[in-house]
């Protein structure tokens, strides 16, 4: 008889656990799932424990079982309260309650889920913390830029006026730097813009190796090998050409004054170690911050990989302001000589008209490819969309922010096997 009771308790417990699991899978938001998991889950585990104690029937089992049960009952309300509070604060989705959020105004809550924000916020942090200049906030999505005007009126609104680039800044890494400089110089000459080359040495990187002065020396030697070639190039250019050599925080140095009217041109691989491979004891990674620069620089960033500027261009249009700015920037400045512009994404009629207008002004035929755009999908483009494409415009770089991720080159995440120019505006 006792065995039967114990068995029924256990069956009941497992049934509750099953219901809790089904709830965890099928309910809509974290709070509903928590409701299923904690209530039914505790009851289920508790019933199974009681059943086990009864079936065992000795003092030893009863003792441990009771303690475990007591502890479950004591802690689970506290733990789930903590978790629910944290979930609420971090902006977890609340579905099905309409506007009747009783905690609204009582607890600060992120307006959108934390996960979505972590991607977009990385670039705002340095600019605001250091108070560089308000124009760093300029591409803030959907925010009126009127209040952030600084004294020089630098906070222009790209949505309203044509964006003209005023300077080109590029990073020189390693032995490929002179060839890359020539490629950027051609662009700068075509656009008639002054050019700045930044040769940076990351002192923090040098400090993280075992031998700081030795590391600095080898970086300087590596730079010295191709620096004369850069100087020679600087002398024969018809546009102003500044050569900056700096040591310090590489990301800061490469981004400069965080000016959105400055086009930052970067190679598609390499980093400020200038090809010198030195192991750092704290990390198993090769030093690599190239793709993070796009978040750091508040304006257009061009990863220049294509050999020639002619060909088709592809745009992944998710409707965000970032991609609108980048597209109007590219067309307004004739960044590439495109023979076709392919716009991938589901667009409303207004955006289509806007794009057609801009493309007509730049003498570029447009083709719209209507398909839903998945922000996190890899590769970003489907193979058929990429024939003859020399340049793409993306709302955001495909994550993770590493040029080589376990042997997978980052442009393969744009389209498999493809190499070319990538323009982003963040």
């Amino acid at each position, binding site marked *: 008889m006792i*065995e039967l009771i114990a068995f029924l308790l256990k069956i009941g417990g497992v049934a509750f656990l099953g219901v809790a699991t089904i709830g965890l899978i099928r309910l809509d938001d974290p709070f509903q799932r*928590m409701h299923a*998991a904690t209530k039914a*889950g505790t009851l289920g585990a508790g019933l*199974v424990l009681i059943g086990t104690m009864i079936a065992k029937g000795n003092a030893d089992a009863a003792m441990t079982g009771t*303690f*475990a049960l007591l502890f479950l009952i004591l802690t689970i309300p506290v733990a789930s309260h903590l978790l629910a509070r944290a979930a609420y*604060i971090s902006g977890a989705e609340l579905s099905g309650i309409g506007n009747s959020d009783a905690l609204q*105004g009582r607890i600060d809550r992120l307006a959108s889920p934390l996960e979505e924000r972590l991607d977009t916020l990385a670039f705002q942090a340095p600019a605001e913390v250091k108070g560089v200049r308000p124009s760093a906030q300029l591409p803030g999505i959907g925010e009126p830029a009127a209040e952030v005007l600084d004294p020089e009126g630098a906070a222009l609104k790209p949505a309203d006026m044509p964006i003209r680039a005023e300077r080109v800044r590029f990073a020189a890494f390693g032995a490929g730097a002179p060839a890359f400089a020539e490629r950027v110089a051609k662009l700068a000459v075509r656009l008639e813009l002054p050019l700045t080359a930044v040769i940076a040495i990351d002192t923090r990187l040098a400090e993280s190796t075992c031998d700081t002065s030795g590391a600095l020396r080898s970086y300087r030697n590596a730079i010295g090998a191709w620096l004369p070639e850069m100087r020679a190039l600087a002398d024969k250019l018809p546009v102003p050409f500044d050569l900056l050599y700096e040591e310090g925080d590489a990301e800061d140095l490469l981004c400069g004054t965080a000016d959105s009217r400055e086009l930052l041109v970067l190679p598609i691989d390499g980093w400020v170690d200038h090809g010198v491979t030195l192991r750092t004891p704290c990390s198993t990674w090769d030093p690599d911050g190239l793709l993070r620069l796009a978040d750091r620089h508040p304006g257009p960033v061009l990863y220049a990989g294509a050999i020639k500027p002619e060909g088709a261009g592809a745009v992944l249009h998710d409707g965000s302001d970032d991609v609108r700015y980048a597209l109007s920037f590219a067309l307004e400045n004739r960044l590439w000589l495109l023979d076709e512009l392919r716009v991938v994404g589901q667009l409303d009629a207004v955006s289509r008209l806007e794009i057609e207008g801009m493309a007509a002004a730049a003498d570029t035929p447009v083709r719209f490819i209507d398909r839903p755009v998945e922000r996190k999908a890899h590769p970003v483009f489907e193979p058929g969309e990429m024939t003859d494409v020399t340049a793409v415009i993306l709302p955001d770089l495909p994550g993770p922010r590493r040029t080589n991720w376990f042997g997978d080159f980052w442009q393969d995440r744009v389209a498999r096997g493809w190499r070319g120019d990538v323009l982003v505006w963040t």
Partner: protein
Amino acid sequence: MENLITTANAILDPAITVLIVLVTIALGVTAYRLLTGPSYADRFIAIDMMTALAVAACALTALATGRGEFLDVAFGLALIAFVAAAAFAGFLERKAARVRSNGSGQTEGASS
């Protein structure tokens, strides 16, 4: 009566195994939620749920194998689960606070 108890035992012993299998399936399904998320909160809830399932599985194993030590394991798990949940909650709140201090003016709520 003696006979009845023997029959009952013959049925109940394998039934425990069936229950363990059921709990294991539930563990698998919960692991799916843990892997797919989508939010951090979902993952932490899934971990919480997994501990409850593991406690139940331990209790059932104690019966199936006849070894009382598994109940101690269940007790230990119940202890650790609380610490883990509290740590996760603290992590999530800190992260949210940091995001908020970086992206000021984008929160809804009392301070904005």
